[in-house]
């Protein structure tokens, strides 16, 4: 039987096709390294500009009119508190919504509309969330320009991320496992709480942390609801010395946050404050990256434990 081509032709063609393969590898690497390189450059630039400002004092000082005495204490404490509220709201609400949509909701046009809108919400500009929160939380609910308002706003903002990530995680639990549990006579809730949720914890927490690392850098919505840029006091401590050892006054406290503080310093004419802004930005970036690192670690831990 005659071959379609001679061996020489076959080899020439194969060499050409393998070259294409190499071209793609090189192209991909160049693009990837460019992106990573830009990020690294940005980070190094921030560290260099803010270099002299790094130190314990920078973390423990309140903002000040004098650049060399100014610190980010109220900013990082404010950011931490807001993140705490965001997490405590977004996790249960997002997970519950995802469980309902994934495990309970009947597949009909109503559920379809909800699903499309949840995905769309992820694309709504954050300033819109800010305006919504200003009207709803700050004025209508009377929560004021507080840590609570900011936390709730950012929770709304990351809710779609948490819901989508949770649904992915729930969906990754094999049907065979659900059937095994149903087959033993479990109810839907028992299947969810004993199996589906525990097995998807890794994915859910990863989604939550990625959501939080988006929220931590958000500026527009918290400016809109009225974050202050100069705060020389800390919110009351959430933990008290007396029973019940918890204190909720901090929720009503006025606040500032890292992005606000950075924005404020950047907009000042004095060069000395630019160094402060760079240092604070480097710290914010480090906070975000370490949150992502935690997400990766959690995912790795759970993957290792559960291997379908």
């Amino acid at each position, binding site marked *: 039987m005659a071959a379609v081509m001679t061996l020489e032709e076959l080899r020439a063609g194969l060499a050409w096709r393998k070259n294409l393969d190499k071209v793609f590898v090189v192209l991909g690497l160049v693009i990837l390294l460019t992106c990573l390189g830009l990020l690294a450059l940005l980070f190094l630039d921030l560290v260099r500009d803010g270099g002299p400002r790094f130190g314990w004092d920078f973390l423990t000082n309140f903002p000040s009119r004098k650049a060399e005495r100014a610190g980010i204490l109220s900013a990082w404490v404010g950011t931490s508190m807001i993140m705490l509220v965001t997490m405590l709201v977004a996790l249960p609400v997002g997970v519950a919504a995802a469980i309902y949509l994934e495990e309970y909701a*009947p*597949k009909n046009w109503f559920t379809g509309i909800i699903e499309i809108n949840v995905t769309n919400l992820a694309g709504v500009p954050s300033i819109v969330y800010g305006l919504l929160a200003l009207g709803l939380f700050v004025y209508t609910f009377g929560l004021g320009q507080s840590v609570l308002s900011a936390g709730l706003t950012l929770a709304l903002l990351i809710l779609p991320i948490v819901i989508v990530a949770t649904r992915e995680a729930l969906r990754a639990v*094999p049907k*065979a*496992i*659900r*059937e*095994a*549990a*149903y*087959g*033993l*006579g*479990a*109810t839907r809730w*028992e299947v969810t709480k*004993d*199996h589906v949720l525990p*097995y998807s914890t890794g994915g859910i927490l990863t989604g939550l942390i990625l959501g939080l690392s988006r929220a931590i850098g958000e500026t527009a919505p918290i400016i809109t609801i009225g974050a202050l840029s100069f705060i020389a006091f800390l919110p009351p401590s959430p933990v008290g010395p007396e029973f019940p050892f918890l204190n909720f006054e901090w929720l009503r406290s006025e606040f500032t946050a890292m992005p606000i503080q950075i924005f404020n310093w950047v907009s000042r004419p004095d060069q000395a404050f630019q160094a402060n802004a760079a240092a604070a930005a480097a710290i914010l970036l480090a906070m975000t990256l370490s949150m992502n690192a935690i997400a990766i670690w959690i995912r790795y831990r759970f993957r290792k*434990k*559960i*291997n*379908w």
Partner: protein
Amino acid sequence: MNTTTDIAAPRAETPPALAIVMDERQPARATPAKAVAEKLDFWYGANHALRNINLTIPENQVTALIGPSGCGKSTFLRCFNRMHDLQPETRYAGSITLYPENVNLVGKGVDPIEVRMRIGMVFQKPNPFPKTVFENVAYGLRLRGVNNRTELAERVEKALRGAAIWDEVKDRLGDSALALSGGQMQRLCIARALATEPEILLFDEPTSALDPIATAKIEELITELRSRVTILIVTHNMQQAARVSDFTAFMYLGELVEVDATSKIFTNPSKKATEDYITGRYG
């Protein structure tokens, strides 16, 4: 035996006696029915998957369902524990009567969860929970409110012994079930189903994902189990049906073509279609 409903309920109706069991492994005798499917129809949406199935499942015997892919044997099996109810737009008509209570398993007023608590199932691919060996077997018991440690330990051991896997796992009850081999996992799944002492045990091609040695162990186990529990098994493998079952039902295109003692089906089937299938002319 019964774990969900009142055992004291008197027999509502004597189950129909079956044809004489023709089996070299035991003397010929009449066997009472454990379950009887009558005029059973089933739909996935508009797809009429099962048509007018009439089949008697004899108590403490192994009944095999054979037939080509897509003939509805797994669909039929899953009617017995109402697994179809997990999917939307599925519908049953007719009845599967469970004796001695005379309950219609696919009846509208019957709770599918109650049915699943009485009828166990072993699936095609081993599907242990990613928990410890012990917790896998204990889960069904925990669902039934058994929380006493001693009782749990006793019942788990009994189930693992019953599934012929106790000796292999007794020292690693606290290890993840996912560390077991495929055959061990499947026997663990059988132990998990046995722990709650089901009245009928459904096997959906339990060895199709296993190697021949693991398969032989499962088949041996099925033969041992038949004295304690009524077994219904779907299999693609005709030799397997011949080896483990007392009765064999041949299904084709959603219908039950023929059911008889296994020895008769494989030596002298009365329908042409059955003969064609078991001699490998299609399927």
